[in-house]
Each structure stands twice: as C-alpha cells, then as structure tokens.
C-alpha cells in the first residue's frame, strides 16, 4: 500500500473527497413549483408502468414528478393532509368519500385491469373453476388454507375486505388468515414462499410472475374489476398544492397518446397488456 505511505497525503485526499461530495450536493436542487407530488399505489410502480409514463410526461411538460408509491389508503391520507398534488389510485368507495369530503376534485377514469386470486398450483382449497370469487374465499376459509392479506388499507386490501363481506366470513383473527402489511409485489413473494392464497391485481402478478410459485386460480368475476382513477387535490383547500401541475399530470394520464401506451404496455414482455385504457368511458360499462 504505497499509496497510503504518506499520512498527510491520505488525510488531504480524504478532505478533498468530502469537499467534492459537499460541493456536488448543491446539484440536488430541483426547481421549485415545477415539482409535482404524485401519490399512487404500489401496483403502478411495481408493474413498471410509471417508469415508462413519467419520463414522457416530464419531457413534454418540464415538470418534475415525485412519485410516492404507497397503498391507495395512504395515498388518499396524503391527499387529505395536502401532502400530495395528484393521486392515481384504485379504491373507488374511498375515492368517492374523498371527493365528497372536498379533498379532491376532477376525478377521472384512467384504466382498469382486474384482480385475481392466486395460490399454489396444488390448490388445497379446490377453488379452481369456481365462478364466484366470494364463493372461492369461502372454500379457502372452510379448508383453513393459508390466505395472505395485504392488511395495509390499499385498494387491493379494500377489495379483499369487500369480498370477505360478501362471502359472510369474518377472517380477522383466524389462524389461516395472515396480514403482511406490505406492498403487492412483496405480498406475492410471501404468499409464494408460504404456499398461501392471496388477492392480487393482474398487472403486478404478471410483472413479477417469473419469480413466483403461484398460479391464477380464480378470475373473471365481475366484482373483481380493478379500476384506476386520477384525482387532483382541491387547491382551494390546500393553496400550497401545485394545482396546475396536478391538472397537467391528470390531463396527461387521460390523453390519447398516454392511453395508447397503456394499451400496449407489457404486451412484448408478458404476452398480454397489464392495464386497459378507459379514459372517457363510464365505469358501468367496463369489462363488458
């Protein structure tokens, strides 16, 4: 270690290194007012869709988008506190409440895919081929097969709770019912590892399928539709929010160009699209 022979030299090097680091620290600053905080679900990030869309938006408009990927529940909580400018979420009932309470405006339909129940190929609860998804959950409960719940108030978790309600079963506290408290990708990993069932959105499942030992065991029930809306924050309530940026992003999401990208996103990699564009359609007509 000739390099380090001279003590003073090493210390000088160290100081120079620190100064260089401190100096370049200033480059971090992104221009103010140009920032948009997008609160969205883990599924839009884990599926890779936003990695394609955000750079396009930033290039076209000059805005800088800070994507915070959390569950839909937390995304709307951020909106309620004025900590986000625009939300891309998939928890319709909670969204309606959010709008009614005056936190958000201009809720627009963006796209949908669907939820699926996945589980080990052996299918111990024999849910394969069962039409109704709440019936399938009933079979899982009756056979005490392991079910992994997101347990994080996300859109997927909200859907799961609706399905349990429909099936007339109260899973909370049961031994076979476990909550991960994690995002979709990680919950799928856990379910795969523990050979359990779980409810997932098709997009995340297809995108992470290669590392999972899980098959699609229940799909197609009309209640399994997974619908994404974009909501702008109510700027009369939160004057600090970047309303113009929020509108620009929401407009971008429903623009024809973006919708065309959504239509084909994932086809090359997974053989089928992960999301179906729906801008301008009515929710009642989806999946028909």
């Amino acid at each position, binding site marked *: 270690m000739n390099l380090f022979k001279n003590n003073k030299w090493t210390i000088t090097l160290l100081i120079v290194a620190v100064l260089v*680091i401190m100096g370049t620290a200033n480059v971090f600053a992104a221009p103010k007012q140009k*920032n948009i905080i997008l609160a969205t679900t883990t599924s839009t990030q884990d599926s*890779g869709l936003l990695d394609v869309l955000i750079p396009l938006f930033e290039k076209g408009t000059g805005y800088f988008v*800070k994507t*915070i990927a959390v569950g839909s529940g937390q995304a709307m909580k951020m909106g309620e506190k004025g900590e986000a400018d625009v939300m891309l979420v998939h928890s319709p009932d909670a969204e309606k409440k959010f709008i009614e309470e005056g936190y958000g405006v201009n809720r627009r339909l963006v796209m949908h895919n669907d939820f699926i129940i996945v589980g080990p190929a052996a299918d111990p609860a024999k849910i394969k081929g069962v039409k109704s998804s709440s019936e399938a959950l009933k079979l899982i409960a009756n056979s005490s097969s392991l079910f992994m719940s997101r347990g994080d108030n996300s859109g997927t978790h909200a859907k799961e709770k609706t399905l349990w309600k429909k099936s007339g079963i109260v899973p909370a506290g049961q031994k076979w019912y476990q909550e991960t408290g994690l995002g*979709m*990708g990680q919950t799928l*990993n856990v379910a795969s590892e523990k050979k359990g069932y779980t409810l997932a959105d098709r997009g995340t499942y297809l995108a*992470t399928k290669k590392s999972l030992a899980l098959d699609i065991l229940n799909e197609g029930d009309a209640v399994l539709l997974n619908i994404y809306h974009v909501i702008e924050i109510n700027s009369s309530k939160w004057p600090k929010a970047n309303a113009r940026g929020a509108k620009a992003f929401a407009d971008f999401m429903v623009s024809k160009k973006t919708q065309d990208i959504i239509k084909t996103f994932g086809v090359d990699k997974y053989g089928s699209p992960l999301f179906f564009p729906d801008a301008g359609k009515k929710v009642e007509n989806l999946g028909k």
Partner: protein
Amino acid sequence: MELIVQGIIKAFELIISFDAEVMGITWLSLKISGTATFISLFFGVSIGAGVALTDFPGKRIVISLINTGMGLPPVVVGLFVTIMIWRSGPLGFLEILYTPYAMIIAQAIIATPIVMGISLASIQSLPANLRLQILSLGASRLQMAWILIKESKLPLLAAVMAGFGGVISEVGASIMVGGNIKGYSRVLTTATVMETGRGNFDIAIALGIILLIVAFLVNLLLTQVQQRQRLR
C-alpha cells in the same frame, strides 16, 4: 443458491458495464451518507467532547440518553422528520420533503448520537492526569479539548466508520423522507427494497453487493488513516 450466484454475476455486469442508473444511485448514496456523516461528525464530536470534559448535575442521565440514541430506530427518525417537514408541518415552508436534503437531515440525526457516544467514551477513557498536565502547561480549556480530541483520533475514526456504516445501510428513514424517486432520491438501500418488491431478486442482490463493496472501500480508506496513526 442459484439466485445468489445470478445476483453476483449481475452485480459484476452492472459494475463493469458502468450501468448509468446504478452508478447514479451509488454516487447519490455516497453523497447523501457522506454529507450526513460529515455533519454528524461536527455535532457529535463537539457535543461529545463537551459532555466528556465538563461536570454538571445529571451528567449520567445525559450520557445514558446519548448511548440510547446510538440505537435510534431509523424509521422513528424518518417519521418525525416527515412530520416536521411536510407541507403542513412546522418546517413545511422549506419544501424539502422527498428530496435528498431531507434524507441528509434524517441520516445526520441517526449518525450524530453514534458519533457522539463513541467520541464521548473515547475522550473519557483518556487518563485523567493528562487533562491536568495540559492545563498546567498553560493551555486554555478550548486548547485542551482540541489536544484531547487529537489524542483520541483512533476511536474517533472508528466513530466515523460506525456513523457512516449506520446511515449508508439504513433504509427506513430514507424511503420515508426521500420517497425513492427515480434518478433523484433513489439510493442503494431503497432501490434494493423496490427491486425485491418487483420480484427482481437478481438485481436486488446485485445492489446489495454493490452496497457492501462501497462500504468496504470507504472503510478501507478510513482504516488506512487510522492504522497509520497507530504505527507512529
């Protein structure tokens, strides 16, 4: 097992090909954690030395608090920093939530008690007579403190390593206050969490390996300085 091998291969692919995104993430990790450690060094050593060299009532309680702070859970720090700096928080006007600055602040808060605790212990472990000796030679208290800090260079470098190691490997606070924004606040640890969530285990392992290499190189440099001191 196969996955780990794949991860290692992937790591070397990413390093050798100078993958622009991974290089950016690594450089950002170094910048943020390096700056945070530098800040923590300033506060940690000065306050640590101050507490070690003054006697006051309740000193043991203060020392216990500092030692407890060495194990400050990063997520708790992240939560408090978030609440302080979000738009509706007391420091909201700064508009620094989800920026690298917020990450530096959170990491500096995590590293400061670590540096403080170690420097406090190392200065206290110097022979008590040394203080009297220096003072009797006519040094002011500030000069004495400076000489004592120089005397404990060895453990102080250990403090730097511990502080830096603590923050560059930390993920809870970074993801909370930084938001893991691509090309802006995504560092090695938060990227690893995200790639794990996406099921890209090979990339996640590769990022983990790069993190270890970076931490090793930084510690190698610091250890060289430290051991040089000892030989003299």
